[in-house]
């Protein structure tokens, strides 16, 4: 208990509260002196809340000590290169520079955020089970719906960072990331961002959805500002994390690991990081402009002052479309990474799969206005954006065909991780197939802003990230802990979640086509959707139960899991050639790459050779 109370996390939260209060009092004092009204509906005025939130977020990071070394360097003091972590669980609640600890910190944070976001979904999904308003007010409904979206998105971004942080240095034979302190900083901005997002609940909520379009977002309660602020703070994590990862892959690969001998996941991680490094700024900018419009009366998006609300949508989607590939590229990379292990065959067309990740990332920058076909932007712009959007289908197709060719004539084994890989492929396929009708403009005029879209992106994000994320957790859990997760519970988790999820999203698409708008708290019973919605709500509960089983599995496997210190899955990847859990600085003996990563079925081949002469061969 004492260790918990003195941890960096608790210290940070305390500092955040104090910083927030001081910042707000500061502005309130100035307003008081200037003769402006110092208090408002939510006690402090909006400028006071916003300034306080900014000070609070910075205070959090300072309070944890994630910046201490930099302060010391500024003063000319020396600090040790490495910092040893305490052996127990408390290292996860404190600032660590070890990429594996940070990876797990990210992953656990992601799971917590996803559970919170999922809880919001269950609240409003229950409301939707029947037409009419059951137990939520309209504003509450909109707030939960909006928070569900953004908390899940941040959750996935954090989960992506977790998987990349944990795996990339290990896979390329590095002892850590290029910039371990920056890495710790990138993680420690996430908790205050999460606090900011959740604080919207106490400040009137916000009713704009995660897209935050003005003018609606200019009129929403103060909670809106906390949403903007939370996203802006979380964005730092993405930008700096992407920078760090690119530097790590470029500079720290072990001897012999040429571009086309990297594990395929590294390609996905690079493509993802290029996006986070270069696009995240745009959503920050878009939100900042609305903040300024609210605080200072600047008319960026106010037609009465010569502004243009459509400009916001361009800025917003210029990030938020590429962002969807930040969610899925790592997931698709995980699918390509795990599949050869369970099929015992090389990844079919390695180079094409690698290039398709880059292709998707780059073309993904050119398609943003497909979210705006009905927005009233220039009518003729819709055609070029349709072409670019449909082009994305080509590299996406390459991945699917390569996976099928990998499976063909393999010796397929399907323990839990492989189940999630296959489930991910099927679900992502449904998401991908429901994309082109949104792109051929005429059909999108009907589909836009309906439940069809809701079904489309839930399938892409679940198939593209959530399923592979589960696969990764089941697969690398032994690496991180030296124990195996329970297979039976894992299979129950899969077989409960997958059919429920497919039912949910296919029904979403069905009602969407028939006339169900998205983001509505209530629907006309005359539409005849009540039964569909009831089934969707039940499916939602089944998914929630499956997730609960997964969490229970994590817990008992950690406590009583079967010991597994060796090469559990019989993989060729370097991290499995050393005992689990992974040593603190990864490889005590460095290794060199001497072959192809996925030469399963080629007798006598090896991927890596350790300096002490041991080799990873077939078995």
């Amino acid at each position, binding site marked *: 208990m004492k260790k918990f109370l003195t941890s960096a996390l608790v210290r940070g939260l305390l500092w955040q509260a104090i910083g927030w209060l001081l910042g707000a009092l500061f502005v309130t004092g100035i307003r008081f002196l200037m003769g402006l009204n110092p208090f408002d509906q939510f006690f402090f005025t909006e400028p006071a809340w916003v300034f306080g939130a900014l000070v609070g977020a910075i205070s959090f990071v300072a309070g944890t000590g994630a910046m201490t070394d930099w302060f010391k360097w500024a003063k000319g003091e020396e600090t040790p290169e490495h910092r040893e972590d305490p052996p127990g669980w408390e290292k996860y609640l404190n600032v660590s520079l070890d990429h594996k600890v940070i990876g797990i910190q990210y992953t656990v944070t992601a799971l917590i955020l996803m559970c919170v976001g999922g809880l919001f979904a269950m609240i409003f999904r229950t409301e939707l089970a029947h037409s009419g308003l059951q137990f939520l007010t309209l504003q509450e409904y909109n707030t939960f719906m909006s928070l569900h979206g953004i908390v899940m998105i941040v959750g996935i971004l954090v989960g992506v960072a977790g998987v990349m942080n944990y795996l990339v240095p290990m896979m390329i034979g590095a002892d850590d990331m290029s910039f371990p302190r920056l890495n710790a900083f990138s993680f420690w901005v996430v908790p205050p961002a999460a606090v900011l997002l959740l604080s919207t609940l106490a400040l009137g909520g916000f009713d704009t959805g995660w897209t935050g379009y003005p003018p609606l977002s200019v009129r929403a309660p103060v909670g809106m500002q906390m949403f903007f602020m939370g996203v802006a703070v979380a964005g730092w994590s993405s930008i700096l994390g992407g920078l760090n990862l690119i530097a790590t892959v470029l500079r720290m690969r072990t001897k012999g690991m040429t571009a086309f001998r990297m594990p395929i996941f590294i390609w996905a991680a690079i493509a993802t990081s290029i996006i986070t490094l270069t696009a995240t700024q745009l959503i920050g900018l878009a939100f900042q402009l609305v903040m300024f419009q609210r605080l200072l009366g600047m008319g960026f998006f106010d037609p009465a002052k010569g502004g243009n609300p459509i400009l916001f949508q361009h800025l917003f989607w210029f990030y938020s479309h590429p962002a969807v590939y930040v969610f899925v590229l790592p997931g698709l990379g995980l699918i390509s990474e795990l599949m050869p292990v369970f099929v015992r065959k090389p990844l079919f067309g390695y180079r094409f799969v690698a290039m398709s990740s880059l292709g998707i990332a780059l073309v993904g920058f050119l398609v943003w206005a497909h979210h705006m076909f009905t927005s*009233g932007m220039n009518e003729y712009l819709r055609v070029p954006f349709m072409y670019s959007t*449909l*082009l994305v289908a080509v590299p996406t197709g390459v991945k*699917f065909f390569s996976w*099928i060719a990998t499976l063909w004539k393999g010796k397929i084994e399907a323990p839990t991780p492989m189940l999630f890989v296959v489930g991910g492929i*099927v679900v992502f396929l449904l998401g991908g*197939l429901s994309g082109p009708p949104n792109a051929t403009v005429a059909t999108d*005029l009907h589909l836009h802003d309906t439940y069809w879209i809701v079904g489309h992106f839930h399938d892409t994000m679940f198939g593209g990230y959530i399923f592979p994320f589960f696969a990764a957790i089941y697969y690398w859990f032994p690496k991180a802990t030296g124990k195996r997760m329970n297979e039976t519970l894992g299979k129950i988790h899969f077989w409960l979640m997958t059919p429920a999820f497919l039912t949910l999203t296919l029904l979403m698409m069905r009602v969407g086509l028939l006339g169900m*708008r998205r983001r509505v708290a209530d629907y006309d019973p005359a539409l005849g959707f009540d039964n569909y919605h009831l089934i969707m709500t039940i499916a939602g509960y089944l998914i929630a139960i499956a997730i609960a089983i997964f969490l229970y599995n994590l817990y008992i496997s950690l406590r009583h899991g079967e010991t597994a210190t060796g090469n559990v899955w019989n993989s060729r990847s370097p991290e499995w050639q050393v005992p689990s859990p992974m040593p603190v600085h990864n490889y005590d003996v460095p290794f060199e790459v001497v072959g192809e990563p996925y030469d399963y079925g080629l007798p006598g081949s090896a991927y890596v050779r350790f300096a002490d002469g041991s080799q990873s061969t*077939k078995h």
Partner: protein
Amino acid sequence: MRHFVIVGVLVIIVFLATYFGLTALKLMPVEASAQSIVVDWMWNLDFVVMCFLFALIVVPLVYSLIVFRRRKGDTSDGEHIEGNTKLEITWTVIPLITVLVFAYLGAYSLGETMAVDPNALEISVTARQWSWQFDYPEGFTSNELHLPVNRQVVLNMTSLDVIHAFWVPQFRIRQDILPGRVTNYRITPILIGNYTVMCSQLCGTSHSYMTAPVIVTSQADYDAWVQSQVTAAQAAAAAGGPANGKLLVQKYGCLGCHTTDGTKLVGPTWLGLYQSQVKLSDGRTVTADQAYLVESIVSPSAKIVNGFPDNVMPKTFGTALTQSQINDIVSYIETLK
């Protein structure tokens, strides 16, 4: 070879089964506009390809999982196949050609939905949180959209506050409605019936309820309806008093912010307002007499009701309305007890 034949046959079977099975479920609402026929044509082409690709991926996937599964006791690896450049190029180039064709078709069908008839009927649409208002060329205002069948209509739409969107599922087409600008919605109804326009761009708390009836009738019924509306408007204007006031508050959009049933929107409700005690934001309490009502319309900032924001209600009604119109509105509000 045997594997390929089996999978090929299964792909065709699954493709046909999904396509015809799902189409039989009637995926789309009825086609009530000329444009919906074009949209559904495009949708159907998309859907054929979707069903085919679904079969093309899922069948070999499931087939491999069953046929190429690891047998008990077998510890050997699969065949060492690293890739095949010809295959990779094939499944890059064929999809590339397909998407280019589809982009062409998409542009073509988009063009069809935008085709302009110079004789189109023009109706103005005003959207606001959270109601619809339709202004007809004959000079009257309605909260229902009546349209004659088989004649193109273009809706000139604008919003008084946030972004809204006009969508009637049976018409298929959708268009956002922006503040400070006019956007167009062009449609040719082809099926007589009652439909609903739904706002389909999240516009705040009551977004779900921002709907209005859309009634497509024969040209004769439409003409008769227009005539009855014109007569009613003229009669009310001639008679003055509450009946005219009721039409005016619809026409000038008062009901976007004020209700007549006690619900609180952006502004205070009018129900039971007349002669009630009103608490003001500066702490005073005044009686809502006739003079107060007139002043609140002409100079909204003079007295602010406690709990409501200043500078929201337009300050232009004093010039937009004549003195007798204002009196009619006030006399209407006085009837709301």
